[in-house]
């Protein structure tokens, strides 16, 4: 399907409109100004031998293998560092060049072990290939002189779980060091020593890669032309024989990867250069942590049980589907049509999500469908739709390359969206200025060659106050882009907003007590944002997961509109989505009040379109949201739930409440890869498929629809969407598709913003960014150009209303939650990989003063208690935290971070307030009652399941 190796043009592509024409080996070629001779020759189809050059890195000119002759130029310049000139005449192959190249190669090989046949890179080694290209036939210097291989070699470094470093094979081309700097931006690697002693080192203070600053993104491995840095999976299995282009199933960046295969076994995942979201870069999760797909914990047989205290019983697909349908129908007969519903998953494909919401609306006959975006980015949808007219981010990722000022708020891209984080850091190294608003000192605040000009260490819960303060400065200091506002925005709404934010109570000084930051820094940040050129806002769940999440999204839109920062490249409001298909699951009509394309169920025209196509009558009333479902379950009016690929028992707030709701239900169907925490309360388990088995599409944070292609057959024997269709049929609604492509055809038929989308087009064009319709046949990388989707931009008044969750003498600290690079969400995937070696347990980060006050030292076990519950965790004393604020992750179920979080939620969307919980922390020497209970639960439901399934 895809070629195994992408063409390497040697140096990066130049993006200028001016072209230059030159002659290479007698053939004319036109390329953008600034292109290297090397790249021009490769584009002509006449590549030049090279070793230190690769097109993901700037030219370096050290290996001297790519020398060429240029008419009128003395000597033999390196083609990688020589830019093209108009009329230049280049010769890439002459007797002199041949002699020089062969001589250089002889020198390289005289210090390289000749174990090619048993080498891990055999068949995939640029040194080997280049030796072949230059016709190396002998090494006149012999192999006996001083060398870096053999007995004198430095030991192989196997510390990283995914790749090995063998210094004996290094040719010191610096490609790994440069990849770490230029692509990843971590600067973990260096060349240590000089001359013959030069060698690659993972930092002077570290013994090995694992102990170094290395974040295991894989860029160095990809850049290495030899077997020096190589995937352990390639060492173990050999080089791949075919590849399939697909999309990563971790975060909302949605990186394109080539799954490189032997038969139906994945050997490695390599980021695709042509991938619009990642352009050839990757992170430790997408690149390496795919082993969960074939983990022994995966359940591949359907299972049923009468009561959740019973052991699981393996069943055929027919039996399990009939069992589920029978129970759901019985519940509806007894308790009414609205007594069941379901939750779609942001980890599943658009097509899988679409069929689940269709099953609920058409077969269940109600709108009780919600999606896990409820608990992450639902405020983004509400806030951006209200102000701008569409529920999505405004830019593509590439846009950051044109940003002059970057405001990061409530996001930690280097951990949670690492590939985009690298792209942002690259722009920052080029000179863009950075404002970070975050209670924690995240890595972006200060890391190699990147620093935030302003770090506003605001108090959790004060986002809206900060935005109003920034807007106050913009309005009162005359920094509004009046022309832009007059042309593009509703002026009545603007005037009201201007008056509101100009009030003295919204000044940085008046709000300083709420924000907890220096008002002067706020003023400077506002001035920088408004006057520093193209200003772009990037945000994450630190914005949305608050009681004022939607208000905050609107406040950011207000600020961007007021300063003219929406509607072109380099600016905008950019939500960094948590999961791979958050955008897609929302687009697909997963919310209880909306059909696909964000159209309200009460809209007659839309509803009749669906009714006609689906052949059923549909409800015009909104259904239950996830938190409402739990409440209704506890009062007994809601008794059946279909859960697609989500672990609500771990990921949703106030775990005890969620558990009580789940326990109260008569039938829970879980469709997942693993028996997750929620499955402990389920009656039917439908085994799911991993992304390596799926055929479909994911839509990333930049609205980019990417293809997900199966590299192996379903381990369960059936596609997830087919299982859902069968359940719908068993419920009495005839739902049938021949393929995932057919589902997308239906989506396109019924959704104006997807009108031009089809698998055939995606296969031909790589990806498309919606809207793809008659007005934008090739998609829409940047939204709101010239005009907002809603017509006039709408300023909303964003009064700061503090959360009801307050600190007190009993609960004096604020807990906020987040993620870490190596783990992903509830950890169901990453905990089943070697990634856990970087993060074996969740910890509570705490400022040294707060720790000292409680007599706590690093590593002590502590009990963290809120008004909701308590858990025990180890403490990590950290100056990244401000005083009074503590922080933890929720990647491990036993940590139970959500036992502590509250029921408070966003006013508009009920997105939970994960980011603000009042807590107390004290030393402890035992797990909490809840943790003990969970351990017992594992001993019952889980153990039985495993025993039964194995029989």
């Amino acid at each position, binding site marked *: 399907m895809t070629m195994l190796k992408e063409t390497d043009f040697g140096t990066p592509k130049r993006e200028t409109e001016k072209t230059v024409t030159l002659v290479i080996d007698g053939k004319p070629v036109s390329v953008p100004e600034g292109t290297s001779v090397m790249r021009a020759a490769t584009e002509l189809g006449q590549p030049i031998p090279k070793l230190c050059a690769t097109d993901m890195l700037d030219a370096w000119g050290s290996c001297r293998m790519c020398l060429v002759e240029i008419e009128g130029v003395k000597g033999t310049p390196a083609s990688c560092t020589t830019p093209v000139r108009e009329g230049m005449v280049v010769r890439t192959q002459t007797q002199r060049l041949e002699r020089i190249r062969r001589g250089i190669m002889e020198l390289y090989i005289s210090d390289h072990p000749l174990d090619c046949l048993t080498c891990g890179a055999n068949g995939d080694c640029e040194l080997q290939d280049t030796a072949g290209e230059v016709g190396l036939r002998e090494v006149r210097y012999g192999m006996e002189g001083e060398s870096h291989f053999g007995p004198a070699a430095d030991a192989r470094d196997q510390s990283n779980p995914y790749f090995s470093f063998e210094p004996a094979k290094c040719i010191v081309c610096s490609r790994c060091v440069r990849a770490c700097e230029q692509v990843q931006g971590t600067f973990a690697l260096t060349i240590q020593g000089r001359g013959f002693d030069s060698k690659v080192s993972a930092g002077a203070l570290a013994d090995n890669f694992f102990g170094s600053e290395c974040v295991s993104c894989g860029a160095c491995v990809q850049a290495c032309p030899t077997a020096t840095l190589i995937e352990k999976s390639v060492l173990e299995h050999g080089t791949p024989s075919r590849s399939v282009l697909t999309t990563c199933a971790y975060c909302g960046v949605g990186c394109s990867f080539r799954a490189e295969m032997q038969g139906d076994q994945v050997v490695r995942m390599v980021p695709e250069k042509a991938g619009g979201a990642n352009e050839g870069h990757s992170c430790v999760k997408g690149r390496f942590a795919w082993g969960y797909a074939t983990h022994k914990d995966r359940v591949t047989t359907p299972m049923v049980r009468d009561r959740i205290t019973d052991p699981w019983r393996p069943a055929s697909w027919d039996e399990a589907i009939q069992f589920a349908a029978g129970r759901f129908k019985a519940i509806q007969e007894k308790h009414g049509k*609205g007594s069941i519903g379901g939750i779609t998953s942001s980890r599943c494909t658009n097509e899988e999500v679409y069929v689940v919401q269709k099953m609920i609306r058409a077969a269940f006959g109600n709108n009780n469908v919600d999606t896990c975006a409820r608990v992450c980015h639902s405020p983004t949808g509400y806030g951006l739709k209200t102000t701008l007219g569409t529920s999505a981010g405004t830019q593509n990722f590439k846009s950051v390359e044109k940003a002059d000022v970057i405001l990061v708020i409530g996001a930690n891209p280097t951990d949670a969206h690492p590939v985009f984080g690298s792209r942002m850091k690259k722009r920052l190294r080029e000179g863009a200025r950075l404002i970070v608003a975050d209670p924690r000192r995240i890595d972006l605040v200060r890391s190699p060659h990147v620093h935030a000009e302003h770090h506003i260490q605001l108090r959790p819960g004060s986002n809206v106050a900060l935005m109003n303060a920034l807007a106050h400065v913009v309005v009162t200091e005359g920094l509004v882009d009046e022309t832009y506002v007059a042309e593009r925005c509703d002026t009545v709404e603007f005037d*009201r907003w201007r008056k*509101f934010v100009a009030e003295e109570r919204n000044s940085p000084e008046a709000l300083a007590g709420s924000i907890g930051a220096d008002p002067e820094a706020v003023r400077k940040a506002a001035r920088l944002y408004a006057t520093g050129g193209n200003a772009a806002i990037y945000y994450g769940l630190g914005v949305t997961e608050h*009681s004022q999440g*939607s*208000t905050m999204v609107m406040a950011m839109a207000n600020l961007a509109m007021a300063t003219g920062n929406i509607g072109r490249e380099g600016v905008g409001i950019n939500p960094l989505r948590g999961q791979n298909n958050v955008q897609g699951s929302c687009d697909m009509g997963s919310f*209880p*009040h909306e059909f696909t394309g964000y159209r*309200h169920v*009460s809209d007659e025209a839309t509803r009749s379109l669906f009714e006609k196509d689906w052949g059923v009558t549909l*409800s015009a*009333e*909104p*259904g*239950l*949201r996830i938190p*409402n479902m739990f*409440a*209704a379950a*506890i*009062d007994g*009016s809601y008794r059946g739930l279909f859960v697609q690929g989500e672990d609500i028992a771990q990921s949703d707030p106030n775990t005890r409440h969620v558990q009580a709701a789940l326990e109260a239900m008569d039938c829970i169907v879980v469709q997942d890869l693993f028996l997750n925490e929620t499955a402990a309360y389920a009656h039917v388990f439908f085994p799911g498929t991993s992304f390596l088995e799926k055929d479909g599409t994911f839509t990333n944070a930049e609205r980019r629809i990417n293809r997900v292609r199966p590299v192996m057959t379903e381990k369960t024997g059936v596609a997830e969407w087919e299982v859902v269709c069968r359940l719908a049929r068993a419920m009495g609604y005839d739902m049938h598709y021949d393929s995932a492509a057919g589902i997308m055809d239906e989506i396109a038929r019924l959704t104006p913003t997807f009108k031009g989308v089809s698998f055939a087009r995606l296969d031909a064009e790589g990806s498309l960014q919606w809207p793809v319709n008659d007005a934008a046949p090739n998609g829409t990388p940047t939204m709101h150009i010239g005009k907002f989707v809603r017509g006039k931009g709408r300023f909303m*008044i964003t*009064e700061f*209303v503090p959360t*009801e969750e307050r600190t007190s003498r009993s609960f004096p600290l604020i807990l906020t939650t987040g993620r870490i690079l190596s783990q992903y969400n509830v950890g169901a995937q990453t905990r089943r990989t070697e990634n856990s070696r970087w993060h074996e347990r969740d910890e509570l980060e705490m400022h040294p003063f707060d720790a000292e006050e409680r007599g706590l030292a690093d590593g002590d076990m502590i009990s963290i208690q809120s008004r909701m519950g308590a858990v025990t965790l180890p403490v990590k004393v950290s100056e990244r935290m401000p005083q009074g604020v503590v922080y933890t992750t929720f990647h491990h179920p036993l940590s139970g971070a959500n036992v502590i979080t509250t*029921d408070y939620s966003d*006013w*508009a*969307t*009920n997105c939970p307030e994960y980011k603000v919980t009042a807590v107390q922390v004290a030393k402890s020497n035992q797990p909490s009652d809840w943790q003990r209970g969970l351990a017992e639960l594992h001993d019952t439901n889980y153990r039985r399941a495993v025993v039964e399934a194995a029989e």
Partner: protein
Amino acid sequence: MSDVSELVRMANQIADFFGPYPEDETIAGVTQHIRDFWTPAMRKQMAEHLAAGGAGLRPLALKALNQMQPAPAGA
């Protein structure tokens, strides 16, 4: 729905957001929001709570909710 206090809190929060607008817009904003996002059962439960005095509802929320049309029967 089990606990009407949860609905009361939600209604108060919605009214807090629309509160800074002129009163007619506040009322329209609150009622439209509840119509758009609350199920008929939730609206019905709130209507019953209102009929019983609407304890816990702050004045703006109370005023807006009192102007809401009843939820459709049987939904």
